[in-house]
């Protein structure tokens, strides 16, 4: 048994905290019962154990943080849009894979107020996907209105851009399956087009 005045090495305690079934466990537990100083050490090791599992930790440079504050202050924080999801009508029209080996796919939707269609092209190797498309609105009063496109994945807004009825738009982004492309209309309606690969 380890005498009370001869403490086990900190590494031994560390191993035991990480693996209580270590071979020296019984001896360490016996020592711990009569050593207040070692109990304090073990308390600290237990407190820090989850945080120690981080492989790399590094402080962000202060100038970088200040640059973020400067950039984000230029834009108002995003405010929840008053949106009204639009039901699909008639049923979705979806393209099968086109262009053979390139993997490009098309997806299009015809809605009460117009149409949206996209070509989705995967990266040649590693890299970004390209989403090229066009929107057509039936209401001529909206012909010159700026329309906002949002490329989202779950709770992440990956990118956004603007377009107008009849104009091409292009978005290039790194994507995982399950993305959504939303067209926000001035009326508050949102047309949503899901990843054709994710369906």
């Amino acid at each position, binding site marked *: 048994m380890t005498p009370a005045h001869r403490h086990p090495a*900190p*590494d031994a305690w*560390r191993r035991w905290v990480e693996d209580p079934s270590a071979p020296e466990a019984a001896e360490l537990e016996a020592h711990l019962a009569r050593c207040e*100083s070692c109990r*304090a*050490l073990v*308390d*600290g*090791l237990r*407190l*820090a154990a*989850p*945080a*120690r*599992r*981080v*492989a*790399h*930790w*590094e*402080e*962000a*440079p202060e100038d*970088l*943080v200040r*640059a*973020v*504050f400067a*950039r*984000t*202050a230029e*834009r*108002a*924080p*995003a*405010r*929840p*849009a008053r949106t009204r999801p639009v039901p699909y009508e008639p049923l979705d029209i979806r393209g099968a894979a086109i262009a053979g080996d390139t993997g490009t796919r098309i997806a299009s939707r015809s809605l009460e107020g117009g149409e949206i269609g996209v070509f989705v092209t995967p990266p040649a190797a*590693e*890299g*970004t996907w390209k989403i090229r498309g066009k929107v057509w609105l039936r209401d001529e009063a909206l012909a010159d209105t700026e329309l906002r496109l949002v490329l*989202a994945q*779950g*709770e*992440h*807004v*990956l990118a*956004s851009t603007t377009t107008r009825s009849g104009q091409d738009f292009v978005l290039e*982004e*790194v*994507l*995982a*399956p399950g993305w959504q492309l939303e067209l926000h209309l001035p009326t508050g309606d949102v047309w949503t087009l899901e990843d054709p690969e994710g369906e």
Partner: protein
Amino acid sequence: MAPDRDPPWPRRVPDPLGHSWAVPVGSSTIFVRPPDSDREERFARILAAADRFSDADLLGRCGAGDEDAWRLLVRRYQNLVYSTAREVGLDGDEAADVFQEVWLELQRSIPRIRHPEAIPRWLIVATRRLSYKVATRRRRLVPGISRDLVDPGTLPDAEIEAKTARARIEAALSRLDGKCARLLRLLFLDPANPAYEEISRRTGLAIGSIGPIRSRCLNRLRKILEENS
């Protein structure tokens, strides 16, 4: 003489963040900065009160336009984001690009975040995807940079738990005095597990005094962590 009172509109509300003015807009409220406040001094007070706010509190305030809540949120997780970018193999310049992009993405995504309590996960997912994007944009082949970084499904829960714990403990350490924080980092967080002789050399503490100081510092740390939770 007229009594000193807050203007009727916007009204000042009891608010641990400091002196936000609450402005009713429709059925919701936005928070604005009073025009005559001293920005730096005020933010220092806010920082001191930062731990009273959960991530959900801060995100809710950010969504309502509170710039101070936004700063607190960035401060809370700045090292988590930067460390994650560096961990996957990016150099300093690339990690800096990713760092900027992550916070911009968060800013535009706030209205659609449904699980504000899971913001560390959100940040790690965004950082990994954007790290892949930056690395491939620069056409660099970096060991560890794989397409898996883009897929949130490949992110282990254990990694999120560890990084959240680290961010929490680092936030608490930042409230200790420098000597305590340095000692506790060396004793409990340094992956090199330095021996007491090395700790003594790096902190200037006598080996015999490390134990008692460690206990005092740990007690303070634990108190801060308990307050925060």
